């Protein structure tokens, strides 16, 4: 049977019950619209929430951890080699926090194809001093350019210009929480006390707001140079190397590799933030489940309408069969009706889904915790449209398959005699 004939017959049958077909198609449209909107919105939120952590977390962090030595001398001794040695009260020893040969390591990392960028970092324990009040704090010494490029540092500097950190010597960007407590204004000079007891004046050039209040009450940022001075260390003192990869999923493998090569600790983002992935997965599963339920309901609508159509068009089916259409042809006709409903419904659903996501995207959503977010986040990933389209076609195919099977089995003799 030629495609055109199939199309003609399907069209004629489809238009003979146009209202019902329209209702079925609207069912699919509604399902697809909600599926796309729900997933776009849910994943927009997911990405935003994950971004809170993952934007600023290196994919692989290289550092020196304080830990007990892995190899105990007694286990190495030839005399006690065959014995099982119990050692109690093992204590860690004080390693240098500084990474050995940091410049060589960074040069090596920059040549690695999997690496998007490398940013050095120093963490210095300090007290923010205000009169006789000392507040616990951490100053992160960062390479401002690399930090902005790889970890969106500039997005989180809500007041002031992040570049002042490297242009003004002895400057600091305070966490918003810290600034509120010590009442520091931009341009003020504050005093910090280092862990060795030295006092150090720093000029406030901006506020930093991460969206996590506890973090902002402790953390502040300064340039690498300032932090080295503040810690009383030389130019080569770097305590952390942050690596951002092109593919985040490679992080555990790469971390393991670096651990061996550089003889330092390397931690991947998946290990550091396992709980975020769990949350994301659960939210994704819920939104898919709801979306798919909607589509299955729409599928039942199509099933009903086709079943009705078949009972109504028994005569037509019988005459088609009597004049030489095989059961297979009849089946194709009904499946193509179902698919037409499905495809038209899905296309309309994609348009409406896009429109509705756009509306959500315009709704204001301002929260103190998220300085960069002004409206509800929506993720316009084409993937959702593709999944919705595929699923709509599969559902309608099966919704059409059973009635079509029934239609193909209609015995023309019974219909023709029955009159």
């Amino acid at each position, binding site marked *: *049977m*030629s495609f*055109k*004939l199939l199309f*003609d017959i399907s069209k*004629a*049958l489809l*238009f*003979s019950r146009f209202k019902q077909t329209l209702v079925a198609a609207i069912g699919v449209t509604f399902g697809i619209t909600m599926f796309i909107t729900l997933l776009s919105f849910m994943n927009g939120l997911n990405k935003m929430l994950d971004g809170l952590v993952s934007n600023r977390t290196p994919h692989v962090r290289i550092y020196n951890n304080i830990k007990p030595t892995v190899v105990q001398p007694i286990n190495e001794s030839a005399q006690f080699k065959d014995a099982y040695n119990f050692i109690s009260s093992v204590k860690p020893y004080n390693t240098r926090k500084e990474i050995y040969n940091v410049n060589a390591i960074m040069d090596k990392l920059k040549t690695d194809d999997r690496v998007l960028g490398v940013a050095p970092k120093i963490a210095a324990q300090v007290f923010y001093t205000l009169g006789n009040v000392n507040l616990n704090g951490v100053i992160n010494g960062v390479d401002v350019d690399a930090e902005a490029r790889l970890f969106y540092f500039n997005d989180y500097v809500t007041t002031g210009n992040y570049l002042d950190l490297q242009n003004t010597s002895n400057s600091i960007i305070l966490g918003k929480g810290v600034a509120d407590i010590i009442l520091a204004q931009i341009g003020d000079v504050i005093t910090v006390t280092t862990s060795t007891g030295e006092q150090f004046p720093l000029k406030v050039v901006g506020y930093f707001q991460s969206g996590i209040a506890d973090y902002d009450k402790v953390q502040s940022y300064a340039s690498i140079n300032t932090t080295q001075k503040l810690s009383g260390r030389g130019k080569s003192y770097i305590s952390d190397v942050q690596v951002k990869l092109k593919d985040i999923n490679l992080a555990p493998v790469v971390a393991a590799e670096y651990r061996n090569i550089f003889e330092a600790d390397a931690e991947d983002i998946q290990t550091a933030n396992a709980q975020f992935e769990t949350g994301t997965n659960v939210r994704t599963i819920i939104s898919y489940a709801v979306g798919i339920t909607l589509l299955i309901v729409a599928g039942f609508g199509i099933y009903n309408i086709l079943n009705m159509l078949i009972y109504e068009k028994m*005569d*037509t089916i*019988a*005459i*088609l*069969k*009597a*004049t*030489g*259409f*095989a*059961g*297979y*042809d009849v089946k194709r006709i009904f499946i193509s009706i179902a698919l037409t409903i499905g495809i038209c419904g899905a296309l309309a659903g994609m348009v409406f889904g896009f429109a509705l996501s756009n509306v959500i995207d315009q709704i204001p959503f301002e929260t103190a915790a998220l300085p960069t977010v002004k409206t509800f986040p929506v993720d316009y990933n084409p993937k959702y449209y593709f999944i919705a389209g595929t699923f709509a076609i599969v559902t309608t195919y099966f919704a059409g398959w059973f009635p079509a099977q029934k239609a193909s089995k209609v*015995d*023309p*003799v019974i219909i*023709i*005699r029955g*009159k």
Partner: protein
Amino acid sequence: MNKNIVLEAKGITKYFNDPVKFEVLKQVNFSINKGEFVSVVGKSGCGKSTLLYILSTMDTDYSGDLLIDGISMKDKSEKELAAVRNEKIGFVFQFHYLLNEFTVLHNVILPALKLNRLQQPVLEEKGIKLLSLLGIEKLSGKMANQLSGGEKQRVAIARAMINDPLIIMGDEPTGNLDSKNSQIVFDIFKELAVEFNQTLLIVTHDDAFAEKTNRIIKMDDGRVV
């Protein structure tokens, strides 16, 4: 084998199993030659319609053998039988059975579109020619449900002829028509038989109709007499 035989029934036997096992057709044997105008008559319930459905390949639940154009229909698949019906058999039913969703012309050429041997414009021309032969070419653009009973039956005849079938079968084609329209339909059949040498097999209980045909197959209680 005689080249002139278009259809041959060899010992066709059929049972109805519901409500009790009952032999409807008992060893039916006959053959139809090319160009014959045959009518099958008999009392109601003697199995003549049942026989027609078997001969038309729509009913496959029988024993014995059926040869159309010298080819056995016994072991063909549903799809192959559909192709045989499409190409070699034309149908006219008691109740017109046109597709109401289509125009008259589209109804006529539908089996030919299925056969897919000629292009649609050529077929439309052929359909118009057939309709004008039957005197209803002015109806070609109307929807099927706008026609009267006699007109519908004539459209059905045109549809039966579109693929130049080997044989046209009719199941009480005049049963539902008044005497004037019956006469028109009969005249058309007669004209087809005489002028186009078209083979026709018509089941009817209208004796007046049957008497005017070339050959009458009389059935009684499942047997040809």
